[in-house]
């Protein structure tokens, strides 16, 4: 390797280190906006949901932002880091959310949703399966979602 390559590599490394940047903070705010905040300025609008009050937010491993409808049937939308939105999940009569609260991804990329008024946790796999992960109706939590109005692994709702 020539000297100029090494010098160029060193220069690039320095530039990339400097440009690594700060964390990006997203916050849901009513009636249908998601803000972006940085340390250096006021909050700005990052994206607008399709006419629902945004609840929980979570980022997948490649930086897509998921947002759930906090009231109503529990729509979930997905936004790229550039703010381009698409529908991830729409509730049906058989499987819906009743007040979507916090979202969280596990390390395998499954998305979990706190289904507030149904007292349960829903799980969306990367392969497109939605199931009841846990049921909190008893007050101590039960596995498997038995006795809930949808089955554990048999439904598919992804677009």
């Amino acid at each position, binding site marked *: *390797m*020539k000297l100029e*390559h090494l010098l160029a*590599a060193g220069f*690039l*490394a*320095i530039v*990339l*280190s400097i440009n*690594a940047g*700060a*964390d*990006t*903070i*997203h*916050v*849901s*705010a*009513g*009636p249908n*906006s998601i*803000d972006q*905040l940085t340390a250096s300025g*006021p*909050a*700005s609008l990052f994206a607008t949901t399709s006419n629902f009050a*945004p*609840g*929980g*937010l979570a*980022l997948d491993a490649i930086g897509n*932002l998921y947002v759930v409808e*906090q009231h109503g049937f529990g729509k979930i939308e997905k936004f790229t*880091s550039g703010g381009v939105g698409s529908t991830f999940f729409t509730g049906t009569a058989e499987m819906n959310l009743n007040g979507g*609260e*916090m*979202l*969280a*991804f*596990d*390390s395998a990329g499954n998305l*979990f*949703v*706190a*289904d*507030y*008024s149904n*007292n*349960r*946790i829903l799980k969306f796999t990367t392969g497109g399966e939605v199931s009841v*992960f*846990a049921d*909190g*109706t008893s*007050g*101590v*939590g*039960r*596995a*498997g979602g038995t006795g809930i109005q949808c089955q554990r692994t048999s439904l598919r709702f992804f677009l």
Partner: protein
Amino acid sequence: MVGLAGLAFNASGHLFVSSYNANFILEFTPLGVGSVFATDPGDNSLLSQTYGLAFNGTGDLYATNYSNNTISVFTPDGAGSLFASSGLNNPVGLAFDSAGYLYAVNNADSTVVRYDSLGADSLYGTLTERGGSFIAIQSAPEPGTAALLGLGALLLAARRRRA
């Protein structure tokens, strides 16, 4: 109705879930087996309409208490204490950034407050709309990682050119 509201995974992949209406935190194994992780002593001092959950880097669980305007912290064995009671106005969402600062979203005044590890608060921002609720933080790429990736790409390019 217990009103399951907050979710957070610990480093072992266990899911922690807060109950807004019943003031407890549940823990679920990856297979979905649940147990009670923490309860309020009965005086709403630790869990009171608990909403957001977030783990720090050493496995302590933080929780916002919507109605009494506090943040509690729980050690991995479930022992709780008060972390912060300043700067909060019906807090909902909670998240850590990559530097270890904790952020809480205040629903009543749509502000975001930042805490250092000792619990000292500062106003971080005010939202564009009323009704702030949840928060998600995208970590910046590690500077070292970015530099190594850049160096790797350049070495590859140089090698290809020589071949």
